[in-house]
């Protein structure tokens, strides 16, 4: 079979090798696809950087007003990253992330009043 891509013509031959694999010849060059490729992909996936995805909630350390939120749902956060500011009396509390994680859910809005121990964010 011949395929023309732009102005170049490729001579392509597809056949089965009999071991559950497919052999594709392109202009005399041999490419074999099958289970081995699948294995290669799964190896690649497991080599992604490891993160601690254990579920964690950030709770209000004191009662106050959420004056600023610096993150969005779905965002990855790094250790020591500023998450939000909780204003309480004359204290401004900068709440930071303790681990590399992802913001699963934000349960508060800016200017919302919260009680001590209320869940502000859920991380994973």
């Amino acid at each position, binding site marked *: 079979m011949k395929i023309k891509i732009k102005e170049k013509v490729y001579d392509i031959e597809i056949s089965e090798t009999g071991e559950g694999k497919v052999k594709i010849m392109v202009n005399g060059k041999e490419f074999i696809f099958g289970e081995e490729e699948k294995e290669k992909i799964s190896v690649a996936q497991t080599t992604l950087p490891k993160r601690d995805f254990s579920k964690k909630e950030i709770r209000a*350390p*004191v009662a106050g007003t959420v*004056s600023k939120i610096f993150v969005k749902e779905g965002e990855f956060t790094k250790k*020591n990253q500023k998450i939000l500011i909780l*204003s*309480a*009396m*004359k*204290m*401004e*509390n*900068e*709440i*930071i*992330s*303790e681990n590399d994680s992802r913001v699963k859910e934000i349960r508060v809005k800016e200017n919302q009043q919260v009680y001590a121990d209320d869940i502000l964010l859920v991380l994973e």
Partner: protein
Amino acid sequence: MRILSFKELPSTNEKAKALARKKIVPWLVLSAKEQTAGYGKKKVFWFSPKGGLYFSIILPKSQIEDLQTLTILAAFIVAKTLKDNFSLEPLIKLPNDVLLNGKKICGILTENVIGEEVKSSVIGIGLNTNIDKFPKELENTATSLKIELGKKVDNEKILKEIIQGLKKQLATISD
């Protein structure tokens, strides 16, 4: 008492927070003769020209409840310092504004960094001491010791008294 004095800083709290991020040196004081970007709660601008007393203290690691109590007590300490030294009758507007003749003379702001526990805390105090004049938009709401007393006061002496007072108070409320 270790005091780092600066001729000018954008904000003593910002400088103290930056230092505390690297290392907590409890009771290290940073003072500036002038702040170019002084602020109070919610980053509201704090008028900080030469003559005033602007300082921040890196606090020892404490429980959040103790820090809240200390912040409120700071207003009482400032008021007491003014009363003892100048026979003035300051009024504390809770949680922690100090007023003289109905006008603000002092602002206090504590800033904490909190993870699973309190990582660092700084308390910043701006006291209108030797300020001659306020801009038009502030002259009805702010005053200074110099305006009230008609004379200059000793910033260094006041600074030391307030720090001693805070140290004593934190020792009584915290383990």
